[in-house]
């Protein structure tokens, strides 16, 4: 049945019910009048004021009919429109992760069913383009690996060749460094493409996060010493998580490296490990310049490198935080960027923790 017909039907049903009630009340009133007229004659019949009777019919017959119309009609309308609500909800919840989940169809061929079908087809098409984009990145990064190997190897031969001039060696070394940078970007892109496709392999085991945080603080102190930055691990209670140790170290090192790179000379870094509700929360704060508010939502975007006017000298591909985000999310956690009231910037992540014994 089409939606138009359904609404029409519900509307007529409500209206009929209302008429039945009004009719019943009128019948009741008229029967009463007639009986009284039969018993007491014209005089008794005249006792009834037509205005008053009409008022009574409206009050006792019309009002319930109106109420029934409002409530019953409302209910029936809601039923008629429920598929629209379901579709709206589905539209609202649609994102990259659930493009393959289709909205259930009623199958009755009405306008809404057709709309659901169109929506599902759109989801399928979107899903296909996303998959294509992902596969493109993955294939592109694989295809780049062989030429990179050949370039690297050929330049290595130039460097070790005995008859190469100093100038040739210098040039080859510069190119080698760039090839290594390119290789690293290719590796990161391929990691992200695999993560997007849900192919990140996690070797989960109980990991003492406090040990990793302790190691990290030491390593970060070494990285930061050159620019006079101090590193403090101000809270580190024992917390275990079920995670891939290697991937977790990758996230931690990336956050620490950013905290050093984007810091000011003689600045400071503070790391805090805490237990939240059923989760481990690790935060790292640094005294570097905060991002402009309009840029803050973009820190986890791929190739985002902060304010281009200030950070051109900072090395890095701009993929580190996207990778950190994908790893944290693969562990069922979340990661965020915030500027604290004292002006420091904080990157923190939370992942489910193993409950303490």
């Amino acid at each position, binding site marked *: 049945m089409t939606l138009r017909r359904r609404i029409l039907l519900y509307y007529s049903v409500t209206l009929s019910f209302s008429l039945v009630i009004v009719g019943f009340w009128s019948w009741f009133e008229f029967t009463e009048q007639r009986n009284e007229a039969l018993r007491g004659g014209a005089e008794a019949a005249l006792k009834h004021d037509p205005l008053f009777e009409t008022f009574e019919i409206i009050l006792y017959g019309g009002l319930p009919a109106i109420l029934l119309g409002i409530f019953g009609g409302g209910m029936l309308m809601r039923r008629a429109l429920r598929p629209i609500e379901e579709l709206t909800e589905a539209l609202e919840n649609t994102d990259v992760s659930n493009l393959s989940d289709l909205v259930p169809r009623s199958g009755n061929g009405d306008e809404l069913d057709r709309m659901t079908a169109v929506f599902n087809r759109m989801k399928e098409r979107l899903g296909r383009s996303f998959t294509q984009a992902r596969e493109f990145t993955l294939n592109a990064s694989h295809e780049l690996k062989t030429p990179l190997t050949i370039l690297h190897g050929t330049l290595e*031969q130039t460097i070790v060749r005995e008859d190469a001039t100093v100038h040739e060696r210098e040039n080859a070394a510069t190119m080698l*460094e760039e090839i290594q940078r390119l290789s690293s970007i290719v590796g990161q892109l391929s990691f992200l493409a695999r993560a997007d496709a849900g192919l990140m392999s996690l070797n989960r085991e109980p990991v003492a996060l406090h040990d990793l945080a302790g190691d990290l603080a030491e390593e970060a102190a070494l990285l930061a010493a050159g620019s006079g930055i101090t590193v403090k691990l101000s809270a580190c209670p024992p917390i275990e998580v079920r995670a891939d140790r290697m991937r977790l170290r990758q996230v931690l090192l990336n956050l620490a490296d950013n905290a050093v790179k984007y810091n000011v000379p003689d600045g400071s870094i503070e790391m805090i490990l805490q237990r939240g509700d059923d989760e481990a929360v690790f935060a790292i704060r640094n005294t570097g310049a905060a991002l402009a508010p309009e840029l803050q939502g973009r820190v986890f975007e791929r190739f985002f490198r902060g304010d281009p006017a200030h950070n051109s000298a900072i090395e890095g591909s701009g993929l580190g935080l996207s990778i950190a985000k994908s790893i944290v999310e693969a562990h069922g956690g979340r990661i965020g960027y915030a500027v604290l009231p004292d002006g420091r910037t904080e990157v923190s992540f939370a992942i489910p923790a193993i409950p303490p014994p």
Partner: protein
Amino acid sequence: MRLLIVEDEPKTAALLGSTLRSEGFEVVWAEDGKGGLDEALRGGFDVLLVDIMLPKLDGLSLVRELRARGHTTPVIMLSARGEVEQRVEGLDAGADDYLPKPFAMSELMARLRSLLRRNSPPKPSVLSLGDLTFDQVTRETRRGGKRIELSTRESLLLECLFRAEGGVVSRRDIISAVWEYDFDPGTNLVEVYIRRLRDKIDREASPSLIQTVRGLGYALRLQP
């Protein structure tokens, strides 16, 4: 040393061939899995380099077949799909090592050295170069007889440079030997540790033993 390369990409094969020949290997090339298997079964190789993606017979099946027939020749797998699972798959199939593309020739040479070392008589536990000595068991390090205190990571770094026997060790190999990271940390940790190690080993003595080979990595040797 005789080495078989099974690789369908001619340019990669040519590069591997010329590099390995210049290092003194006798190189045979097979351009598909089937030919590679036949060649390998004929025997006489000290080590095999096998690409995973190959026409006719893929690298993993080649190694499985070879092992099933009782051949124990060491195998290094090469692959452009350099992910962790591929490494595990390669080792499960019976390969001895796995090298993800893109790789440096110096990294390949390092793997070959360590594979071929397995079959040679064990080295003494104390490694030495000039007046620098390093005991692999007690981790004791001395230069000119004077004892040097190294942190765990510093001694791992020194050990990995020593093991290259004068060869260049890439940043990536240092990272995997010292930190066991399977990813590129994108930091200058390696540079920081090399500086610290130099401060302890080379600062008060000459000649300098830790050398930077720009574009390639670091080497521990007496002369450039």
